């Protein structure tokens, strides 16, 4: 039986001024344009699932996301991405993000990028397989779209090579 869902208030955690400002960018009515839609072609239990976040997570062995340029140019956000192997250890990551408190992810990556849960779900048959690679890009892009070419296109290419079917995406 479907039950009545109460709506989430997406502004709940924002200070009132910031919430009011963000609301000036968001229409009151539903989105009217075309939305791409790829239905699952097989049961979730047979699907390979990848995780993607925009939280600015990178391996300590990789270059960090560029915070310095954003501090100089407040409407610029790093358009690149980093690969995070599904077996990445907690102490192998760094988080560089100027719009959230990174400490929680540094304590437990699964609050943001659920790599260990995907592996568990694969073992339990909830999903078919956890993709070998998860990904992070940098969520603050303001009005820029070059990250689609610099980050999302190569992420899609790698996902294809790992036979990914479905993606869990977590904005910071």
């Amino acid at each position, binding site marked *: 039986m479907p039950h009545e*869902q*109460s709506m*989430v*208030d*997406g*502004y*709940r*955690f*924002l200070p*009132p*001024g*910031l919430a*009011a*400002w963000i609301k000036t960018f*968001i229409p*009151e009515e539903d*989105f009217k*344009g*075309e*939305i*791409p*839609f*790829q239905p699952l072609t097989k049961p*979730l239990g047979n*699907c390979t*699932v*990848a995780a993607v976040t*925009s*939280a600015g997570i990178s391996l300590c062995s990789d270059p960090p996301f560029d915070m310095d340029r954003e*501090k100089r*140019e*407040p409407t610029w956000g790093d358009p690149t991405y980093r690969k995070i192997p599904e077996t990445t250890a907690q102490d192998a990551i760094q988080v560089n993000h100027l719009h*959230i*408190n*990174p400490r*929680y992810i540094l*304590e437990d990556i*699964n*609050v*943001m990028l659920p790599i260990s*849960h*995907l592996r*568990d*779900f694969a073992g339990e048959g*909830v*999903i078919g397989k956890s993709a070998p690679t998860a990904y992070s*890009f940098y969520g*603050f892009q303001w009005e820029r779209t070059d990250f*689609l070419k610099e980050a*999302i296109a190569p992420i*899609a290419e790698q*996902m*294809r090579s790992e036979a990914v079917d*479905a*993606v*869990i*995406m*977590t*904005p*910071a």
Partner: protein
Amino acid sequence: MGLAARQLEASGFATVVLTPTWEFHRLVGIPRSAAIAYPYGRPLGQVGDREGQRKVLRAALDLLETATAAGSVSHLPEEWPEAPRDTHWHPPEMSPIIEAHLEDIKKAARR
């Protein structure tokens, strides 16, 4: 994240965005959203709460099978145990874009 989801979806992947602010869907048109009333930076749940995180992830993944139309938004029932002001999700320093728009933000607050 919405634009990234659209591009991945158009590239042949089924996506679900687990988001604290689902309202961005109205701006960009997101294929599937699971809305969660959790603070920014912890959409899966609290540090170390494996069971809670699993429950949220499972609910978000379920939407991949149950959503039948583009633009579906599922509102998850979970509640965060702390009041918003006690969640300390904010960056340690004010973000550059906020600093650059402080006057606009103050103006919006007065409206």
